[in-house]
């Protein structure tokens, strides 16, 4: 590797290493609720929404934020997200999971 390229790579790695790891927010999806159902996030703060389901295939869909995940039993679904606008944004389960499916949702509140 040429010296200039090596130095550039080293600087980039150092910059990456200095960034704090994004905050991980665990969220449980179960019939028929998200826990927690209200997420308070700070504008510009990178987070990872980490979903797990306690029973069946669920979905996380926040169309106004362009976020979506399939939440499958036995595995975590991670959604990296950095809020770029303030406000309240609804999300819902978008995989039909039973008689309370229609009420299964929550809200992401982004504040400055």
């Amino acid at each position, binding site marked *: 590797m040429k010296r200039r390229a090596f130095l550039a790579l080293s600087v980039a790695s150092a910059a990456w290493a200095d960034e704090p790891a994004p905050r991980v927010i665990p969220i449980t999806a179960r019939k028929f609720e998200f826990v927690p159902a209200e997420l308070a996030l700070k504008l510009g703060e990178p987070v990872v929404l980490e979903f797990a389901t306690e029973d069946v295939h669920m979905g996380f869909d926040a169309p106004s934020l362009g976020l979506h995940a399939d939440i499958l039993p036995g595995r975590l679904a991670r959604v990296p997200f950095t809020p770029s606008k303030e406000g309240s944004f*609804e999300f*819902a389960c978008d995989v*039909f999971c039973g*008689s309370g499916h229609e009420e299964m949702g929550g809200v992401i509140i982004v504040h400055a």
Partner: protein
Amino acid sequence: MQGIDRRQFLKVAGLGGLVFASGLARGADSYTQAQDEFFFVQLSDTHWGFQGAPNPDAAGTLPKAIAAVNALDPQPDFIVFTGDLTHTTDDPAERRRRLTQFKELISGLRTKQIRLMPGEHDASLDSGEAYREFFGQTHYSFAHKGVHFIALDNVSDPTGRIGDEQLAWLAADLARQPKDARIVVLTHRPLFPLYPQWDWATKDGDKAIELLMPYKNVTVFYGHIHQEHHFKTAHIEHHAARSLIFPLPAAGSVPKRAPVAWDPAQPYRGLGFRQIEAERDEYKLAELPVIKA
């Protein structure tokens, strides 16, 4: 069937219902001009088996709607149910019991030509297995007096997709139609993203609309949102029907997608069914109540 006198139809439509005219592209071709006029009826979201405060007469509403349809004179050529025939249950035996009861109830309709399709409450928890045992295929097409009808299944996949296999079938089915064919699509969910925050969408509905777009005369009738709604994607019209169990609020009008409360002073308000008159160059829609005012 005998031709329907236009004045007679409007008289029927005037019995507490609303009339909505839906124009078709008027072509210079002979295809649309050679067709018979007829009418059919759309019922939707009956949710048989539902129990709860939003409809204290849940067990009586569908029978009342059937009586109202049976009272139509003349009778429609056929009747369609655009999904959510039954209310969902985790118990497969209970699901079959509800489907059995629903089948028995609709056998009391005077019009024997009945076209069914599932909603997510019927089919999403078992990929349509129980539904197919009772009513056969969940997607199909048929012709009636010059109109090509296509029933699309966007519910057997619990993620609300039509799926590539069915889309390929749709493409092949459409390929046999001339571009000026009169096409009616019957489905449960909206094919366009009406309000995805409330799951009022079909994930790959845009692919179906893309396939339909080259056809000049396409109209979609659907259910799912428990209220009348009219929308256009380019020249394609989409008409949602009322429910026969409880109404839902307009998209995004309230924080939660909860049923509109039952009003004892106005029972069955917001519930009803639709009569669709297929004329040469338009569909005339009449929204009829469960109980005449």
